[in-house]
């Protein structure tokens, strides 16, 4: 029962986003975003490809998962 509710919630979110986001594609935001994607202000700390380190565990803990 809980699983069903969770699935419904996820589907509801997806439908809601599809309804709102499709127009985003239509107006051409994606093209502008594509031009700027490489100009980000943050970078991944060198060599820190995802590993479940103590830091990551701590982040999960602080995020209450």
């Amino acid at each position, binding site marked *: 029962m809980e699983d069903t*509710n*969770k699935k419904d*919630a*996820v589907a*509801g*979110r*997806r439908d*809601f*986003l*599809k309804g*709102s*986001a*499709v*127009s*985003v*594609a*239509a*107006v*051409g*935001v*994606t*093209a*502008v*975003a*594509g*031009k*700027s*994607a490489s*100009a*980000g*202000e*943050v*970078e*991944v*700390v*060198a*060599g*820190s*490809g*995802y590993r479940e380190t103590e*830091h*990551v565990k*701590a*982040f999960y803990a*602080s*995020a*209450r*998962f």
Partner: protein
Amino acid sequence: MTNVDVVQIEIAEEDSLRADMYDFIASLLRTEPSDELIAQVALLEGDKTPIGSACLTLSHLAKTLDNGLIRNEYVSLFIGVGRGEILPFASYYLTGFLNDKPLANLRSDMSAIGIRRAEGVKEPEDHIASLFDMMSGLIRGRFGRRFSVAEQATFFRKHIEPWADLLMRDIEAAKTVVFFAPVGTIGRAFLEIESQAFSMDGTG
């Protein structure tokens, strides 16, 4: 600069569009818009949604305003002489001071995610454009893996939701604003969609 393997992650179309929106708004708020960016914005089309109609206004302004004036507007809004009319930093909005606790909290979460301010970026990490870059990166899996919607929601609720709506309203209502007014409108409308969508996910 980074040696991290780029993880190819399939993401749903709506998530890809969310990341596009974050990138789009970040590109306009990061620094004075380049000629290339303004030319791209001029190609935007519109529709009847709040975001669509603000995009149409923005496109019209990009076509008609002088690029130098647009850049001057950016400077007077966000940089200014001494300080701009608007300080788009989480710490300032939440505490009245730059570089205060919210920035420390963000740095701690960034370190946990495994990211840091890119070299050459001078502003503190809690600038709105940085935070939007981070949301885009979390969604796209740019930081080594894809972060779940629940994790995205946690980051959004902690670092963006408490203040970004007010920032966007301040941009819309600023004294010297012309070109950036619809950017604020688009930002506000998009943040509302994000808030609503996260609340539908059953994560709280």
